[in-house]
């Protein structure tokens, strides 16, 4: 690592693009690098692991029943004799998949809403942000619960509902950024040089909004995972025979008196994932020098 960072004595003329600079700062943040590595390992394991283990998440061995971790079943088996490791890896697919999709929904709504409000300014902006304030103050998890209860427990609806709740902060961040950018001198300079708004938006606005959006997206994923797991824990999220980490934790919590591993392993892996995502997000925030969203 040190071989690449010895750039300092070079003549300053060369200069670093902001992205290269951010990348180098990120690489020096050990926790963030650990988080990114951990996530990569988890993602690969969830995608490829089940293929290599030759077991399906529904393969039962009722005669075997629940067994503690052993050489054959590394993390033990559940009461139906299903291999816990395989179930966790399959659950990871669902949990990570729902988290990604819901985050994309939140990202789409938030960026669009925030950009329109910030760019329009004036009364429209005032009205749009007032709406966000009001929604912010409401018990919106309550609505997610109602939605999932009433309109079937289907997985597409689940992530649309979660995404529809989590977009608010993104909208606020994008709006603030766009509004600040509009008044910046380099935008004015670009305009006075005769560049069209297409070029200004593509070359000057978007790259500058991207930083906060990337950071906040990384931090939204764990929030979404938490919400999905909480819903699944209440029995309102992912339904059997599919399982997410939330449902595995729920099952584990019900049977923990006799079979501790059913709770401990899914819980630990879930926590590890949250940990990795949060640290990658914090690292990105420091690297891209984004001011805290909460103020």
């Amino acid at each position, binding site marked *: 690592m040190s071989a690449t960072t010895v750039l300092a004595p070079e003549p300053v003329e060369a200069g670093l693009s902001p992205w290269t600079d951010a990348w180098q700062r990120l690489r020096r943040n050990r926790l963030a690098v650990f988080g990114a590595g951990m996530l990569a390992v988890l993602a690969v394991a969830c995608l490829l692991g089940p293929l290599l283990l030759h077991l399906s998440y529904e393969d039962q061995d009722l005669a075997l029943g629940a067994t503690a971790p052993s050489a054959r079943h590394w993390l033990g088996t559940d009461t139906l004799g299903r291999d816990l490791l395989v179930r966790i890896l399959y659950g990871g697919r669902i949990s990570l998949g729902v988290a990604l999709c819901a985050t994309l929904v939140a990202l789409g709504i938030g960026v669009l809403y925030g950009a329109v409000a910030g760019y329009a300014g004036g009364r429209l902006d005032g009205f749009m942000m007032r709406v966000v304030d*009001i929604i912010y*103050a*409401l*018990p919106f*998890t*309550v609505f997610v*619960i*109602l*939605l999932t*209860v*009433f*309109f079937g427990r289907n997985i597409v609806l689940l992530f649309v509902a979660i995404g529809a709740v989590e977009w608010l902060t993104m909208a606020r961040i994008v709006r603030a950024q766009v509004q600040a950018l509009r008044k910046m001198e380099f935008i004015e300079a670009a305009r006075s040089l005769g560049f069209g708004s297409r070029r200004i938006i593509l070359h000057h606005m978007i790259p500058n909004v991207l930083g906060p959006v990337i950071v906040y997206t990384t931090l939204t994923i764990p929030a979404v995972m*938490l919400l999905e*797991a*909480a819903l699944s*824990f*209440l029995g*309102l999220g992912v339904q059997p025979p599919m399982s997410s980490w*939330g449902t595995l*934790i*729920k099952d*584990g*919590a019900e049977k*923990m*008196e006799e079979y*501790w591993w059913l*709770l*401990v392993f899914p*819980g630990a892996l*879930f*926590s*590890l994932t*949250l*940990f990795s995502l*949060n640290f990658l997000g914090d690292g990105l925030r420091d690297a891209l020098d984004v001011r805290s969203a*909460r*103020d």
Partner: protein
Amino acid sequence: MLRFVVRRLLQLIPVVFIIVTLTFFMLRAAPGGPFTAEKAVSPEVLRNLEAHYGLDQPVWKQYLTYLGHLARGDLGPSYKYTNRTINEIIAGKLPTSLELGGLALGIALLVGLPLGVLAAVKRNTWIDYLCSICGLVGICVPPFVLGPLLALVFGIYLHWFDVSGWEYAGDRVLPSVTLGFAYAAYLMRLARSGMLEVLHLDFIRTARAKGAGEARLVFHHALRGGLLPVVSYLGPAIAGLLTGSFILETVFQIPGLGREFVTSASNRDYTLVLGLVVLYTVFIVVMNLVVDVVQVWLNPRLRFE
């Protein structure tokens, strides 16, 4: 200030109106009804039941009737608990949930704030690192993992506490610690970073130069500004406690409103769902108002507007 409070309370009316309308029509648009789940209800009985509760009337009429009752503070009868009104159910179960939330918030404030301030003052010492680790655990181990784990260790292995119910003082320990811990960790992080920011400012240096002791510096000069981020987080935190209560009341089988909300939604007990949504909305708006007032009190640069 009085004008500010009154105006904010008046805003509550349109907010509740919008929420009630949304929820009401969402409930009616969903498939199934409060009596569809019951087995062997003959068509006549069903019709009588619906007539009794006014469910046979057109939806808009039901809606207007509901609004009329709501304006008088009557949340209507429950469809599932026969002979009980929503007001009675709420009166019976709200204290439990309030107690859980209050205890959790108390733990969060009593543990999180002092530790955060301490960590900022003793920056880069073992105290600071220990606090960071606790903060980390609080963020990465959500209540629905921590709760069962605590129940496993302290309830089942050590037999210190019961793992379910809400009868004895001991029953309150595990749920409120679980719920409070997550927020304690977060408040600690906020208090630490808020204090660090303030402790770098010029007026602190001036005070130190004038010979103010370390304790006076922290408590008299820095605390008020350093705790601002904590106060602005309290609004979302209180909303979060509410969601947390859904989970913890399920984990520890506490007879509170949170669990009631989840079951009533599954049972399609329309009036109970609506009543609880109204209650939650009013509660959160009022708590946000309190938080705003405290914020202006702490930071005179903000004005009531």
